[in-house]
């Protein structure tokens, strides 16, 4: 089944899709990685992060700057992008020592805005609103990726890696510990789970993959500026997770595809596009709050204190 699916995916570039459709598929791929990474934090650990775009941006800038100034291979710049993002994830995870729920979400929001404003104002490094231009094509072992089909394969490989790693992680002892934290922190700690350690870990891993996605995006778009990594972008990623179904990797991947493609399909409606997008979000929440593939029974039951 999985092999069938992957072989089908590898055929896609040969099916003669227009560059426009290829572009949408590649963009969907980037958002699938972002949604999967956020799902670890929000879907499985229960931390609603409103600043995921910050990690995405940090990864993009790190990778772009390394490639521009030092002409390094994509393998290296992408990992560096992930690691730097993970470092900030770790930093952001530390206040979880004291904060919970909405308050923690607000710290992530504030963090996202601060990162964006630093990006806008640290002219010598980021060139501010002008952004970074001329980011080189990704190079892997001397092979330069510059065609749509190659980008498609690269993002496919990244998705599969992300998927496998996150999936294995969730099934492991650490993964159940994260879900236990989501379900009941007090009980989880009573079972011997070091809450702080696992939350920080979730932040770091989640940020790592968001950073990788950012790094791919930077090399694919060849131009980035802080406007690509705003609070709205964070909300977009979070919407994918909620819409797809928190805690379901397949669901959030689907959510990513839907939320990238729907606005594209609505392009003919021009300025009504975002209006409809907003309405769709509300309607989705009202009709299927657990998301497309979320288990309707899996809605958390409020605990009576």
């Amino acid at each position, binding site marked *: 089944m999985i092999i069938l699916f992957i072989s089908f995916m590898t055929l896609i570039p040969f099916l003669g899709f227009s560059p426009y459709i290829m572009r949408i598929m590649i963009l969907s791929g980037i958002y699938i990685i972002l949604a999967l990474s956020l799902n670890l934090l*929000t879907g499985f650990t229960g931390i*609603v992060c409103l600043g995921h775009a910050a990690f995405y941006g940090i990864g993009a800038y790190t990778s772009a700057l390394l490639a521009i100034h030092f002409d390094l291979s994509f393998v290296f710049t992408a990992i560096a992008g992930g690691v730097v993002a993970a470092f900030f994830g770790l930093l952001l995870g530390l*206040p979880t020592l*004291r*904060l919970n*729920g*909405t*308050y*923690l*979400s*607000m*710290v992530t*929001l*504030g*963090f996202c*805005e*601060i990162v964006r*404003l*630093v990006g*806008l*104002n640290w002219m010598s490094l980021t060139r*501010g609103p002008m952004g970074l231009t001329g980011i080189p094509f990704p190079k892997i072992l001397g092979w330069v990726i510059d065609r749509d089909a190659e980008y498609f394969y690269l993002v496919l490989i990244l998705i599969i890696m992300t998927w496998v790693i996150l999936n294995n992680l969730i099934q492991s002892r650490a993964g159940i510990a994260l879900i236990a934290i989501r379900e009941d922190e*007090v009980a989880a700690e009573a079972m011997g789970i070091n809450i702080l350690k696992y939350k920080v870990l979730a932040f770091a891993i989640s940020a790592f993959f968001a950073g990788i996605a950012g790094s791919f995006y930077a090399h694919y778009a060849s131009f980035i500026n802080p406007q690509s990594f705003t*609070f709205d972008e964070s*909300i977009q990623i*979070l*919407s994918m997770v*909620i819409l797809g179904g*928190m805690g379901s990797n397949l669901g959030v991947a689907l959510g990513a595809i839907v939320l990238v493609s729907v606005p594209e399909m609505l392009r003919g409606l021009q*300025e*009504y596009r*975002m*209006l409809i*997008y*907003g*309405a*769709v*979000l*509300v309607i989705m*929440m*009202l009709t299927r*709050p657990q998301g497309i593939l979320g288990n309707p029974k899996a*809605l*958390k*039951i*409020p605990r009576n*204190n």
Partner: protein
Amino acid sequence: MLFQQLINGLTLGSTYALTAVGYSMVFGILGLVNFSHGSVYTVGAFLTLIFFTALKFNFFVSFLLSIILTGLLGILIDRISLYPLRKRNAPKVTSLISTIGVSIFLQNLIMITWGSETKKFPLVINRGSINLFGANISTLQIMIFSMCIVLMVSLNIMIQKTRVGKAMRATAQNSKAAMLMGININAIIMITFFMGSSLASVAGTMVGMYYQTIDPYIGYMAGLKAFAAAVLGGIGVLPGAIVGGLSIGVIEAIAAGYLNAGYRDAIAFAVLVLMLIVKPSGLLGKQASKKV
């Protein structure tokens, strides 16, 4: 110079405070951050402008109409996007996304109906000014500041003294118990949304007058800063909104004098993050104890 910045900071800060009330009250009662509040603020400012310039109403009539309509919009937002979720006990995060959807919807609605370009907000109040300790204080600034303070203080008195206010506080403390005591929770929630939204309309209009321009994006930053103000003062605590709003306004105005102007907007967020890490319950909030 410092005194001038202080005055400017207090003026803007008082509008943050008015906007913060909406966040604070809704959070107090529903435990939810209402992300559509910033867009409601924008709608308020635009409604006043439309009634005044396009429909040629008297300014105060326009202002009053905007306050009432924006308040009703608040109720509508709750009924459409939040009430159904509340009824089925859906997780908080779905309500959050729902209000974000409303926010995107409203902002784009404004852009479609009135265009996305910056609009001139006419001079309504004579901009005469007085000179105090070398600072230039306009009548408009005095009006904005005193109006905000009067509104905030009367709101506080209402919450503390009146029956409705007591019912609101009871609902915020424990909605189930309040319901058992015969309080109509839904009515309380409606009043909360009405008041929060109409105050946002006041703030939006004031800021429009202050800068003499508005655009469909004004609510975004104003909303986020007001939220930071609500948290700084202690979310769910009304006097906290005043303290938080004025503090953010002043800190921002003063720091802007020393920092690169581009970082001005970052200050509110830095304050927000620091406050949450040091004392999440805010300046005036009580620390909640963990119940096992």
